[in-house]
């Protein structure tokens, strides 16, 4: 879903923003992004229609069971409305740096939020209600509620991660539903033998979110080093809110400041810089990780078998670092001004990122992976580190994708 949101913004940037008008790939990029966005919406609506068909085929009233698809659409709408906007930056006016009055910027941001809400959640919400027999305008209050709730919760970051996890779960379920239906023309869990109760049949479509036991390897992956790393990262984020010197700050700040000190004193500077950069991007990292975790859990639940544990653990750990892996590490000009080329900086940055990824992966490899898979994956990371002089020239997001995808294949092979 976050990919769909980013697609929406990329589409807008490509369509309106002055500074990308000269890009020769602009037309193709617009086509690609628009196709992605429309395909996502079309698939979602088709899935809801298919869900309704299944209900009717078994004598169940779509109106009575509109909750799940409606909820999914509202979560998408909530996600669209939750997008944060940079203060003072217009989303729609052509000239990015034009000095616009504050009231005009507020209207611009409101318009952007409404558009994102409708673009992401409008189609599935309306589809769910129409198929259930309600008029199309019945969806408007629902969308408005999602929008207002998102704006109200925006200052509080934590619910966003939970929402991301839930959305990821629903995406995983939906994706598995599509795959199963398209490939086998099966009827899904409605036809699981032995289920007599209609309510149980339908609610089997959405496993209860609380109390659902995650597959054991994933549970361990959450409990072990990733959680302490996340806890440390959250402490550092708290420390980032402080401006008072430690001797005058409250006692609760001292652990956070100690954490900063620990981070800054890592002797390997590229690794320390990558870790510090992750803290900066922690909201994205946690959101993507929550989404992927939910996706894996949703896939697992619908398909009735365990999602492949080792590739899943590898991917969850790597996606946690995605905001760092997919971007060039910003280095200060006071450093780069003395370099005859930025190549050396790029090589060291890439190595720092790989070291950081390996550091959080190593405990998982030693604890959870069979030796063969662990050796393959650590060898893959070592190869990436060694080949950094060549790989540093790749677009970072492309390189990160290859790193994670091949790693997942190696985890499955091991």
């Amino acid at each position, binding site marked *: 879903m976050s990919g769909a949101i980013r697609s929406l913004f990329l589409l807008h940037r490509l369509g309106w923003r002055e500074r990308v008008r000269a890009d020769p790939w602009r037309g193709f990029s617009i086509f690609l992004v628009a196709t992605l966005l429309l395909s996502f919406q079309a698939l979602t609506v088709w899935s809801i229609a298919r869900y309704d068909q299944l209900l009717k085929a078994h004598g169940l009233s779509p109106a009575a069971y509109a909750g799940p698809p409606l909820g999914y659409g509202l979560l998408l709408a909530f996600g669209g409305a939750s997008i944060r906007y940079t203060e003072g930056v217009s989303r729609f006016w052509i000239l990015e740096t034009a000095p616009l009055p504050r009231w005009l910027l507020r209207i611009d941001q409101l318009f952007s939020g409404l558009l994102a809400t409708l673009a992401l959640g409008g189609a599935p919400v309306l589809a769910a209600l129409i198929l259930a027999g309600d008029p199309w305008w019945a969806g408007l209050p629902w969308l408005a509620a999602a929008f207002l709730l998102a704006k109200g919760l925006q200052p509080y970051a934590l619910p966003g991660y939970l929402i991301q996890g839930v959305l990821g779960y629903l995406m995983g379920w939906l994706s598995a539903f599509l795959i199963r239906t398209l490939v086998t023309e099966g009827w899904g869990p409605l036809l699981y033998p032995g289920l007599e109760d209609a309510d149980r049949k339908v609610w089997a479509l959405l496993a209860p979110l609380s109390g659902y036991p995650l597959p054991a390897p994933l549970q361990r992956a959450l409990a072990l080093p990733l959680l302490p790393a996340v806890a440390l990262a959250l402490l550092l984020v708290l*420390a980032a809110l402080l401006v008072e010197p*430690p001797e005058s700050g409250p006692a609760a700040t001292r652990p956070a400041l100690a954490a*900063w000190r620990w981070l800054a004193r890592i002797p390997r500077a590229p690794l*320390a810089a990558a870790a*510090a950069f992750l803290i900066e991007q922690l909201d994205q990292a946690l959101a993507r990780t929550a989404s992927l975790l939910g996706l894996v859990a949703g896939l697992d639940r619908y398909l009735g078998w365990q999602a492949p544990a080792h590739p899943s653990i590898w991917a969850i750990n790597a996606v946690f670092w995605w905001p760092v892996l997919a971007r060039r590490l*910003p*280095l200060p000009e*006071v450093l780069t*001004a003395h370099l005859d080329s930025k190549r050396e900086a790029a090589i060291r940055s890439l190595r720092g990122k790989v070291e950081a990824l390996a550091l959080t992966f190593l405990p998982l490899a030693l604890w959870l992976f069979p030796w063969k898979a662990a050796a393959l994956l650590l060898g893959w990371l070592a190869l990436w580190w060694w080949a950094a002089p060549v790989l540093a020239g790749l677009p970072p997001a492309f390189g990160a994708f290859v790193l994670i995808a091949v790693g997942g294949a190696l985890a499955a092979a091991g």
Partner: protein
Amino acid sequence: MADPPVLEAVDLTRLYPDGTGVRGVRLRVYAGEIAALVGPNGAGKTTLLEALAGRPPQPGRVRLLGTGHDRRRAFLKRLAYLPEARALPPFLAGRTAARLAEDLWQQPGLYPRFLQEAARLGLAEADLDRPARVLSQGTREKLALALVFSREARLYLLDEPEAHLDPIVRNVLENRLDELRAAGKAVLFATHDVYLAARLADRILLVKNGRVRPAGTKDPEAILAVLTGGKEDERDPGPSA
């Protein structure tokens, strides 16, 4: 025979698409000398320092101890440059930046020198550990200065090094520049502060409307009168003495 200059620029020109910039600059800076570029906002001081630092390279126009921009690695090896945009990224701590500098600049021993420079500039240990985001503007400036002063170089190009510094740290800065002069380094710094330039520099060069010429005086009032004067000075500046 006079010692050759550490830095020499001949007919250095760097113009922006709208025609602003610097043109036909000729200047020399010698070892053991501090020269100051003084001029109003938009005069071209930053543009000139960037051009001297090889951003972008201008082969044949600038020589640092006989090495031009065409031999970029050798040129930069002898240079310490404090650019106008020198803020650390919000996530980066000064200590990590110094270690990165030691690694990237391939100057062993830079990190201990950085710690010494940081202590002289009044930076606390905690300031070196915390990300730039939570530091004051003055502290961030001090970190950038400490990084540049810890670099071993023959020429120091500094763009408004006194910016955002309190009077105590300014005093430290002036002492540090004096030490560089005594050690035989060449220093060229840009400033708005005519009084600082008069106090510290051996020579003052006026920058106005993209042209550079010697001030011919260190009297701040006289310099201010020239800078605020209305008549355009169209003389082609000769090389600085």
